[in-house]
Every structure is written in structure tokens, then in C-alpha cells.
């Protein structure tokens, strides 16, 4: 099924358009992808460190004001990442390391969702200077580890597992 989907996607007009532009499109998207990861990890990482107990004098809500920049980084990387996958679907669907990256992405996303829905208001109410509860520290730890996992799996993509789906 995956094979059918990959080869269908590979023949769609949008994929063909990307493939024909690959000479300049791919390096440009890669550059944006690396800048985006720095922005995302820089801002989200700062927020996680705050939840872990660093910068205690600053209210959590104030550090959270920077999160739109993390969202900018994430959006840039989602868009450029989709361009990579649409251009060369089999290269990604056939690579187990890509699925590890996707799994880390799902963990990071679910973790952020849990924070927003269940802990967001409680976190905002913690006065400056007070220690954060263990639940928030765990959420911050999961966030740091899963985003790092996304980066590591992404960087290992061309080296680990790339051969597995060569026939796909």
C-alpha cells in the first residue's frame, strides 16, 4: 500500500514540478529547514528550561510569549519537509529512520497538546520564583528529548536505513 502511495505521489503534478526544480529548490529548502530547526529548538528549548526550573525569576507566561517564534520555525520545517517528501516519497516512506523521526514528532506534538490542554493554565498561575511541579518538569524533559530525537533521526536519515527502501 505504501509502495502504491509512494509511486502515485511521485507521479502527481506537484511532485513532478518539485522534481524539475530540484537544482535550486532542494538546497534552498534544506537551508530553511536548518534555520527553522535552530529557531524551533532555541525557543522551545528555552521554554522547556524554564519549566525545568531555570530562569525562575521570569513568569512562565512571559517566556511563553516567545513561542510564536517556535511555531514559525515548526511551520517552516513542516512546509520544507513536505516538499522533500513530496519530491522523493519512496526515499522517505521506505526508510525506517524517517518513521522514527515521525514517531518522535508525534510524541513531541502529543506532549505539547497535553501541556496546552491540561497544564497550560496551571503553569501560567505559578508565581515567579516558585519551583515548578514534577509534572511540568516531566513534560519539559519529554519535549527536549523528543525534539532532539526529531533532529537526530532527521540527520541520520541518509546514513541509517536509507538502503532498506531502495527497492520501494
Amino acid at each position, binding site marked *: 500500500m505504501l509502495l502504491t502511495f509512494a509511486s502515485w505521489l511521485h507521479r502527481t503534478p506537484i511532485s513532478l514540478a518539485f522534481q524539475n526544480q530540484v537544482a535550486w529548490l532542494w538546497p534552498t529548502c534544506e537551508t530553511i529547514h536548518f534555520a527553522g530547526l535552530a529557531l524551533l529548538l*532555541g525557543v522551545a528549548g528555552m521554554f522547556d528550561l524554564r519549566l525545568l526550573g531555570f530562569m525562575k525569576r521570569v513568569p512562565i507566561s512571559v517566556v511563553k510569549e516567545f513561542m510564536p517564534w517556535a511555531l514559525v520555525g515548526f511551520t517552516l520545517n513542516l512546509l520544507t519537509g513536505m516538499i522533500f517528501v513530496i519530491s522523493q516519497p519512496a526515499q522517505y516512506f521506505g526508510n525506517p529512520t524517517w518513521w522514527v523521526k515521525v514517531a518522535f514528532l508525534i510524541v513531541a506534538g502529543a506532549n505539547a497538546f497535553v501541556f496546552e490542554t491540561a497544564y497550560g493554565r496551571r503553569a501560567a498561575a505559578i508565581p515567579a520564583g516558585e519551583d515548578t511541579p514534577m509534572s511540568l518538569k516531566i513534560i519539559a524533559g519529554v519535549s527536549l528529548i523528543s525534539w532532539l530525537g526529531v533532529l537526530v533521526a532527521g540527520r541520520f536519515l541518509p546514513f541509517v536505513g536509507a538502503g532498506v527502501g531502495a527497492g520501494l
Partner: protein
Amino acid sequence: MEDFLLRLQESDFGVWVSSAPTIFAYPTILMLHTVGLAMIVGPAWVLDVRLLGYGARLPVEALRGAFRIMWIGFFINASTGIALFISEADDKGLKWIFWVKLLTIALALVVTTRLRRTVFGSGVASDVATPKARTLAKASLFLWLGAITAGRLMAYIK
């Protein structure tokens, strides 16, 4: 020069980095280079946008710790960068874009140290950036973006 680059590349260490059949050679070193990138550029950009006026409720002083993360990232990337360079010295050393990358990083380092001195050098950092601090913040933003761009293009420009 080229003879020297070739000898670097063909040294035991250079060959190990480029061709050892283990994930701990080239793939891990390259991965750490990206982790270091995030540790340098991420905090740098947070500080830059704050100095340019974004998130003004955040005391600039709270970002003093950013430099420690950046220096650790820089140490990681200088070490891994040297290892990566040795492994492909005869290729990368002859590319103009590689020297553009090094120049951009050198300028970014000068800007970063001056930014640190200007903003954090005398007691508690002011929450309103001086025009000089704003100029340095803009320079930092674009120089780190330039370093990333040049680094990426090293894989494409002959």
C-alpha cells in the same frame, strides 16, 4: 597547499571519519554538528529578537545564561567541524563557499562577543536595547543565517 589538504584527508583519522563502517564516525559527527548549530543559533536568535523589541516583558538579564549554551554549542561545532574538514579536506578546503562560511562565523563571533560586552558587560542588563545593541542584534541574526546557508551550500557548490 593541496598536498597538505590531501595528506590531511588521507590520514588515519581522516579516513576513519569519512569511511569507518560505523554510525559513530561520519553520521554521528555530522549529527553533533547539527545539535551544536541549534545550541549556538537558537539562543542567539532568541536574544536577538528580544533586543529588537520582541517579548519586552522578558528581562534581558534572564538571557545571560544563553551564552553558556552558545559556547558549549560552539565547542561542539568547532571540534566536529575540524573532524569533518579533515575527512574531506581536499574537497572542502578548495571550495570558496567553505571560506565564506568560515568568514561568516568569524564575523558572527566578533558580533556575539561585542553584543555580550555591550548588553551584559556592566552590571544588570538594561531592558531597553541601545541603538548599538540593536545593530549588533541585527548583524547577529543575519550572520548566523548566512553561516547556515553557506554551510548547507557546501554540499552543492562545486
